[in-house]
C-alpha cells in the first residue's frame, strides 16, 4: 500500500470528532465536535473540569477508549492516515511508533510482574526493526536521558522497585523510545509530588524541544498550563470553547467560561485578597446536552440567541479563537460579575492577644515502629512527626505545607486524637474537628445527610431530638445548602455539596479549631473557590481557627495568616504567610515555591526557577544532620553533621537552617 503523504506541517489534525459512550440506559455524548491541529514541536494543553470530555477526546486520538466508548464520527489524521478508519493491526503500527502515550498513574500503566527491560525492548525491536541487543542499547540510552541513575543496571528492575517519580520517567522513556512525532499525555504529573512534578515538567519540556515531537497533554492544573504549554484548548461540555496561545488566552480570555475559570483561582501576584469568583450552577448532563451554547445557564452574558443556536469557534486574533457570540465574553455583559468586595480579612497582630493561645504543641513526636529484619536487631522506626513545636492564637489560620510524606497528615491525626503521640503534648482550648480530603469516603454511604450532621450531636449527647434537628437545619443553612438536602444520601450529592456537608459536620460541636486536610484537592477548580470562600466566611463570622493543610501553595497563601513548612516530620520554616511566600528563608521553602507553577504565563516566563533534584529520603533513614541536606543547593559539611534547630530568623519568622537565604 502506498499512502499519499500530504505535504503539510501538521503532526495531528482532528476534524469534527464525536465520541459517545453507549451505556445501557443512555448515550453519553462525551466529545461533541472537536477540531484542532498540532504542529511539530508544539505543546498543546487541553484543560477542563472532570466530565468535560478531555480524557475521552485524548483517548479517541489513539482509539484507546474504554468500553462502551465509541468514535461516532470525525477524522483523526496522523501521518496522513485517518486513525478512525484503521484496523486494529494497523493501529498497533501507529501506537508507539508514531504516537507515544503517557498515562496518569505510572503504577497501573506499567506491568508489575515484568521487568522494565521486558516492557521496553520488544516495542523498540518491533517498531524500529532492530535486533535485541541494539534495542536494549537504545532503551538504556533513553532511560539515561530521562534521568534514571545507573540506567544500564536499573533497566532490569521491576516497577515496584522504583519510586513514583522514577516510574513516570520510565513511562516517558517508553513513550519516546520509538521516536514518535506526537506524544499524548493524560495528566502526566497529577499523581506526583510537587517537586517531582516540576522535575518531570522540565524533562518533558527539554525532550520535546530536542526531538521535535509535538505534545498534547490533558490537565486540570492551570498553573501547569502556564508553565508548560505553547497553546491551550479549554474544553467545556465536550467542545473546545477557546483555543489559542497560552500567553494570549491567560492575558485576554474571550470565552465566559475561561474568564470565569481564571478568576476562581487565587491571584498569582497575591497582592489583593479579593473573594474568589464562584461559577454558579453545574455543567450540563451530557446524556442530554442542551440546545445552543452549553455554558449559557451559568453565563452572566447569556442572551436569547444563546439558547437557539450554538456559537462556533471564531478567530479573535492571531492564533486565538473562542466560541462565543460576544467579542469579549463576560466583559460585554450588561452587568459583568464583579468580585464581591468583601475581602478576606487577615488577622491583625493587634487582634491576636498572646494570652489567647488556642492551641499549643510541645515537642510533638509520632514514631511508627517497623518490623525488625531479625528478632535481635533493632526495628527501624518511621519518624512521621519528629519534634514539632507550634502555637496558634484564637481566630488565626495556620497553613501547613509540604510534600507527601512530610508528616502533615499525621500531625492532623495527632491534633484530633486519632493517634496518640509518641512523646510531647498538645493543649487545645475547646475541641478540634476535621474536614476531610475526600468528601465521599468520609461519609457512611448508608446514612442520610441529616444523620451524618447529627451524628456528633448524638454521640456527645447534646440536646433533645428536636433541638438537634433544629441545630442540623441551622448548620446546613450555614454552609449554603437547602434543607431539602438533608434527606439525601452522600452519593446523590456533587463533590462540592459533599464538602459543604463535611464542613457542616465539623461545625456541629462548635469547635475552636477546625483542621482541614487538603479540603479542596479532590474537587474541580470551579468548586474549589466555593469551598475556600465558605471557609473564609466561617472564619470571619464564627472566629474559628483553621489549620489548613495543603500542597497547593497559592491557596494556602491566600487563606492563611501564618505558614508552617514541613519537611520529613519537622517544621523547617514558620512565619506570616506573605513574608514566607515572598522572602523564603529556608532553601526548602524556596524550592517548594519554585516547584509550584503559577497560573500566569507572563509570571512563569520571568521566574528564575531552581528545581531541586532528588527525591524525599526515606523516613526510615533520616540523615543525622539537616534532613534537607541531600537535596539542598547550599549544603556544607556542617549541614551533614549538625542538625539545625528552628530558631528566630527575623522578628516574626523562624527557620531551621544554618545558612538561611
Amino acid at each position: 500500500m502506498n499512502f499519499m503523504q500530504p505535504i503539510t506541517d501538521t503532526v495531528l489534525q482532528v476534524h469534527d470528532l464525536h465520541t459517545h459512550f453507549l451505556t445501557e440506559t443512555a448515550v453519553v455524548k462525551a466529545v461533541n465536535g472537536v477540531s484542532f491541529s498540532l504542529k511539530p514541536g508544539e505543546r498543546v494543553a487541553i484543560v477542563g473540569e472532570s466530565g468535560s470530555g478531555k480524557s475521552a477526546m485524548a483517548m479517541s486520538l489513539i482509539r484507546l477508549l474504554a468500553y462502551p466508548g465509541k468514535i461516532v464520527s470525525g477524522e483523526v489524521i496522523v501521518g496522513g492516515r485517518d486513525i478512525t478508519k484503521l484496523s486494529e493491526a494497523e493501529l498497533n503500527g501507529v501506537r508507539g511508533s508514531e504516537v507515544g502515550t503517557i498515562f496518569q498513574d505510572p503504577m497501573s500503566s506499567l506491568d508489575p510482574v515484568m521487568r522494565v527491560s521486558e516492557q521496553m525492548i520488544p516495542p523498540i525491536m518491533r517498531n524500529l526493526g532492530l535486533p535485541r541487543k541494539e534495542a536494549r542499547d537504545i532503551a538504556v540510552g533513553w532511560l539515561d536521558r530521562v534521568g534514571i541513575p545507573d540506567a544500564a543496571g536499573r533497566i532490569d528492575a521491576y516497577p515496584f522497585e522504583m519510586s513514583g517519580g522514577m516510574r513516570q520517567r520510565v513511562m516517558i522513556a517508553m513513550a519516546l523510545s520509538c521516536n514518535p512525532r506526537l506524544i499524548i499525555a493524560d495528566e502526566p504529573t497529577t499523581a506526583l509530588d510537587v517537586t517531582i512534578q516540576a522535575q518531570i515538567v522540565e524533562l518533558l519540556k527539554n525532550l520535546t524541544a530536542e526531538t521535535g515531537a509535538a505534545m498534547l497533554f490533558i490537565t486540570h492544573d492551570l498553573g501547569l498550563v502556564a508553565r508548560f504549554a505553547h497553546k491551550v484548548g479549554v474544553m467545556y461540555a465536550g467542545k473546545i470553547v477557546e483555543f489559542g496561545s497560552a500567553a494570549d488566552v491567560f492575558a485576554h480570555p474571550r470565552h465566559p467560561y475561561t474568564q470565569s475559570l481564571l478568576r476562581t483561582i487565587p491571584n498569582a501576584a497575591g497582592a489583593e485578597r479579593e473573594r474568589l469568583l464562584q461559577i454558579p450552577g453545574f455543567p450540563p448532563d451530557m446524556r442530554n446536552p442542551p440546545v445552543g451554547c452549553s455554558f449559557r445557564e451559568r453565563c452572566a452574558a447569556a442572551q436569547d440567541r444563546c439558547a437557539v443556536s450554538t456559537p462556533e469557534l471564531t478567530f479573535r486574533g492571531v492564533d486565538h479563537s473562542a466560541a462565543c457570540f460576544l467579542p469579549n465574553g463576560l466583559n460585554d455583559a450588561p452587568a459583568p460579575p464583579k468580585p464581591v468586595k468583601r475581602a478576606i480579612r487577615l488577622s491583625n497582630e493587634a487582634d491576636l492577644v498572646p494570652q489567647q493561645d488556642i492551641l499549643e504543641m510541645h515537642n510533638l513526636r509520632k514514631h511508627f515502629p517497623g518490623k525488625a529484619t531479625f528478632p535481635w536487631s533493632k526495628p527501624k522506626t518511621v519518624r512521621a512527626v519528629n519534634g514539632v513545636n507550634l502555637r496558634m492564637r484564637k481566630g488565626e489560620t495556620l497553613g501547613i505545607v509540604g510534600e507527601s510524606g512530610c508528616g502533615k497528615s499525621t500531625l492532623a491525626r495527632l491534633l484530633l486524637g486519632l493517634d496518640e503521640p509518641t512523646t510531647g503534648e498538645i493543649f487545645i482550648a475547646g475541641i478540634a474537628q476535621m474536614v476531610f480530603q475526600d468528601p465521599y469516603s468520609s461519609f457512611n454511604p448508608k446514612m442520610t445527610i441529616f444523620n451524618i450532621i447529627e451524628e456528633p450531636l448524638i454521640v456527645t449527647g447534646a440536646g433533645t431530638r428536636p433541638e438537634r434537628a433544629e441545630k442540623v437545619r441551622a448548620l446546613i443553612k450555614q454552609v449554603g445548602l437547602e434543607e431539602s438536602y438533608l434527606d439525601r444520601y452522600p452519593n446523590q450529592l456533587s463533590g462540592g455539596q459533599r464538602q459543604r456537608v463535611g464542613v457542616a459536620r465539623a461545625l456541629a460541636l462548635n469547635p475552636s479549631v477546625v483542621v482541614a486536610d487538603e479540603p479542596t484537592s479532590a474537587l474541580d477548580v470551579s468548586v474549589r473557590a466555593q469551598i475556600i470562600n465558605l471557609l473564609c466566611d466561617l472564619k470571619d463570622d464564627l472566629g474559628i481557627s483553621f489549620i489548613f493543610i495543603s500542597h497547593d501553595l497559592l491557596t494556602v497563601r491566600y487563606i492563611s495568616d501564618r505558614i508552617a513548612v514541613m519537611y520529613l516530620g519537622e517544621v523547617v520554616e514558620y512565619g506570616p504567610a506573605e513574608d514566607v511566600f515572598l522572602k523564603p528563608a529556608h532553601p526548602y521553602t524556596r524550592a517548594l515555591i519554585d516547584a509550584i507553577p503559577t497560573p500566569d504565563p507572563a509570571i512563569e516566563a520571568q521566574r528564575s526557577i531552581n528545581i531541586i533534584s532528588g527525591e524525599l529520603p526515606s523516613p526510615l533513614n533520616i540523615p543525622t544532620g539537616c534532613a534537607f541536606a541531600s537535596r539542598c543547593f547550599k549544603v556544607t559539611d556542617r549541614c551533614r553533621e549538625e542538625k539545625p534547630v528552628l530558631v528566630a530568623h527575623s522578628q516574626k519568622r523562624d527557620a531551621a537552617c544554618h545558612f538561611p537565604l
Partner: protein
Amino acid sequence: MAITFTTPARASFLLRMPKLPGMRFLAGNKKARLALIILVPILLLTAFASYLPLQGPLQTNLRAMMQEPSFYHPFGTDRMGRDVLARTLAGVQVSLLVGFSVATIALVFGIVLGTIAGFFGRTVDRAIMSIVDIFLAFPSLLLAIGLVSIVGTGLIPVILAIALADVPRFIRLQRSLVLSLRSRAYIDAARTVKASQWWLMSRHIVPNTIAPLLVAGSIAAANAILVEASLSFLGLGIMPPSPSLGNIIRDGQLYLQQAWWISTMPGVVILAIALSLHFLSDGIREALDPRARK
C-alpha cells in the same frame, strides 16, 4: 370510615421502598428473576403441600408400588407405594429449614465474632482466628460427619453440624470486611467526636458489611441443602421414614433401573433449589455492586 386506615407514615414507607437499589434491581435482574421463578412455586407447593390432593408422605399403598409418574402421582410412587411428590415436598421443607437455619446461625455468629476480631485486633483477633483456622483445616463434609457420628442423627444435630463448618468461614469473611472498613475516613470522623466503640461497630461497620454477607449467606444456604442431602444419603442425616431429599434418593438408588423416578425427581428438585439460590446470590451481588454489572 374505613379509609382512615392509610396513615401517612405507611404511605411514605411504601414510597421509599423503590429507593432501595437492591429491590429495584432484583426485579430487573435476569438471574434473580429466573431464581425467583423457580423458587417461588417450590416454596408455595411446599407450604401448601397438605392441601394438595396427595396421599400423606408416610402413607403406604402396597397395591400401587413403583408406579410410573402419572396424573395421580406426578412423581410416581416408591417401593412401598408412597407418593414421591408428597415425600419430595416434605423433604424440601426439611431442606429449606436446614438451609435457612444454617445460614442464619452462620450469619449471626460470623457477624458477632468476625466484627469483634476485626475491630479490636491484637490478642482478641489472634485468639478467635486461631480457633477459626483449626476448624477451616477440616473439609466441611468430614467435620459434619464426625459431629453427627458423635452427637447422633436427626434434624437439629444436622443443622448444628453443618453450621459448625460454616461459622468459621463467615467469621473470616466478616473480619476481612471489617478490616477494610476500619480505616475509612467516616470511622475517623466519628472517632474525632469520641464515639464509643459500640457506636462505631453498630452504626458504621456492620451496616456496611451486610450486603456481601447476604451474598455469602445465600450460597451457604444452597451448600447446606446439598450437605444435608449428602448426609441423609449416607444414612447420617434425617432418619427414615421421615423424608428428606437425601434419604429419598438413597431409597430409590437400588431401583434405579426399574424405577428411575424415585431418585431422579428429588435429585432434580435439589438441583433446581441449589442452582436458583446461586443465581439469587449472583443477583444480590450485582444489585449491590454496580461494577459487577456488564
